[in-house]
């Protein structure tokens, strides 16, 4: 269960996880939504590579295709053209069930408002992941230790409705990291948070990206938090534009 001291080099194997880690690679990815007259090109020949341990922010106006990018990168849908590879495995060649298995084993999702399950305590949110991936050969994290790491150990018995927005996001991040995923996809994590909390949450994401050597893609509107990221790409009308270093 080695989660510290891993390098960020794409060629290095995570000592805690099985298989080669090479991050995320999108090449010439095109995704069209709708049909007939209402056909919209959500992603237009997008190329993007994210190395393990790299924290990439995707910014852009609403409707620019940011969510579509997450959906394609997260194996929630398959692109019409181009290839998506996660740790060298082509998502396009997988069946729906295989994509679900790939998500549960190798991809972590952090949603807008945490999207925790209301019936579960903080600790059980994490234990559910262990339960979902039972039988798989994975480098699972110890739930209490991970809660300690995101600063939520003291509220392990609370349910989501007893937590603040920032606390929910911390639990959501911990949940996404349970299987030591190769890829962490983060959807507008600060949408419901004030400034101070936003910084806390995004800096936690940055820290965990390094510590877990995970390739992280964060979609955001919030320009305040971009300083925590390694790289910022901008999305307009389904195209990725200049990839810049944070200001």
């Amino acid at each position, binding site marked *: 269960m080695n989660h510290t001291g891993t390098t960020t080099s794409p060629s290095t194997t995570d000592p805690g996880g099985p298989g080669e880690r090479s991050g995320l690679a999108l090449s010439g990815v095109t995704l069209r939504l709708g049909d007939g007259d209402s056909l919209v090109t959500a992603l237009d020949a997008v190329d993007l590579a994210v190395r393990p341990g790299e924290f990439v922010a995707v910014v852009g106006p609403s409707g620019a295709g940011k969510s579509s990018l997450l959906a394609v990168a997260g194996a929630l849908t398959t692109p019409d053209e181009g290839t998506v590879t996660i740790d060298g495995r082509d998502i396009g060649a997988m069946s729906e069930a295989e994509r*679900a298995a*790939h998500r549960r084993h190798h*991809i972590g999702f952090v*949603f807008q408002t945490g999207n925790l399950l209301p019936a579960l305590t903080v600790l059980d949110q994490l234990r559910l992941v262990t339960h979902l991936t039972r039988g798989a050969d994975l480098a699972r994290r110890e739930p209490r230790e991970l809660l300690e790491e995101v600063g939520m150990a003291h509220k392990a018995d609370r349910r989501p409705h007893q937590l603040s927005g920032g606390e929910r996001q911390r639990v959501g991040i911990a949940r996404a990291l349970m299987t030591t995923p190769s890829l962490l996809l983060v959807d507008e994590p600060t949408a419901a948070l004030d400034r101070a909390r936003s910084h806390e949450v995004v800096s936690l994401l940055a820290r965990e990206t390094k510590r877990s050597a995970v390739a992280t893609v964060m979609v955001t509107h919030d320009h305040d938090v971009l300083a925590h990221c390694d790289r910022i790409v901008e999305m307009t009308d389904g195209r990725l534009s200049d990839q810049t270093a944070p200001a």
Partner: protein
Amino acid sequence: MFLALRELRFARARFTLMGGVVALIAVLMVLLSGLSSGLVNDGVSGLKNLPVTAFAFDEGTKTDAAFSRSVVDTAQMDAWKARPGVAEAEPFGNVLVNARSSRGVPIDLALFGVTPGSFLAPVAAEGGGLAAPDGIVVSASATDAGLRVGDTVTLDRIGTRLTVVGVTADQYTFGHVDVAFVPLDTWRRIHAGAGPDDQVRPETLTEATAVALKAEDKTTLDLAAGDKAAGTSALTLAASFAASPGYTAETSTLNLIQVFLYAISALVVGAFFTVWTIQRKHELAVLRAMGASKPYMLRDGLFQALVVLLGATAAGVLIGVGLGALISGGAMPFLLEASAVAVASALLVALGLVGAAAAIVRVAAVDPLAALGGHR
């Protein structure tokens, strides 16, 4: 099961409400089952408890009233006796009479005319068996109506006096009336409407209602061939129940109500799980995005439904059996049979599960993409 059990605990108020409905249905089902068994028992236990394989009625007798219409003669009896596989063939008489006991109690009796000493003759648990022409052996249930060994029973109108010489151990009732076994010759006179001093036509003294048949061990009687040879219409014992008064009407009404209960239960459970699934659509999308497989989610949902159904049905059956115990002493014919209750409970759970499954399959249709974005 991890999530299913925690959701049950978390949303216990909602699940308890739904479980309460299922439990009430189970209570009603147990009571109906008891009433149904009780009515059947009251209607045909007199036939059920006879060691008979089949009854051969006169050819062409209308089935639903065969016990009151049919008349068979000695020739038909002898023809059946000669059939292969027939161990016993005895005349059996059946007539309903009104009477008054020596204690002044008015009582209705189903007189079963049987030959004393034959395989049809009753075994008396109290008193003695059939012997004297005016001696009758009455059903155990007749003691509730006030008959005792030694009482005299006078039949209305014809004035024939019979003496209770014995009481059976089990309940013998026919058409909700207590059975009294009477020697066949006496039965023939009563059936002919002849009082103690009346003359009867000699041919009535060879008649009976039906030929009671008993097959040899491990043989099935060829009823059709026997009917052809004897000029009768034979019914198996179970089929002959329909020939007792009111039997078909009672059982079909209760069965219909039970079928409705099963349907209601399936619909209630289906409706609940439909709402429950729709309410959690976003959560389910999150689970799918996290990579929970469809089989996992379907299993989890069905397990949840099974827990609720089993718990609610068990609670309902317990309450129903308790209520049944209170009822069964009274005037209502009520008999709880473990097998009937078990079958009904299993059906309730199974059909509830079908209803739940119809709702839970929606889980598989939830699009994990719905987990992205802010709109709920």
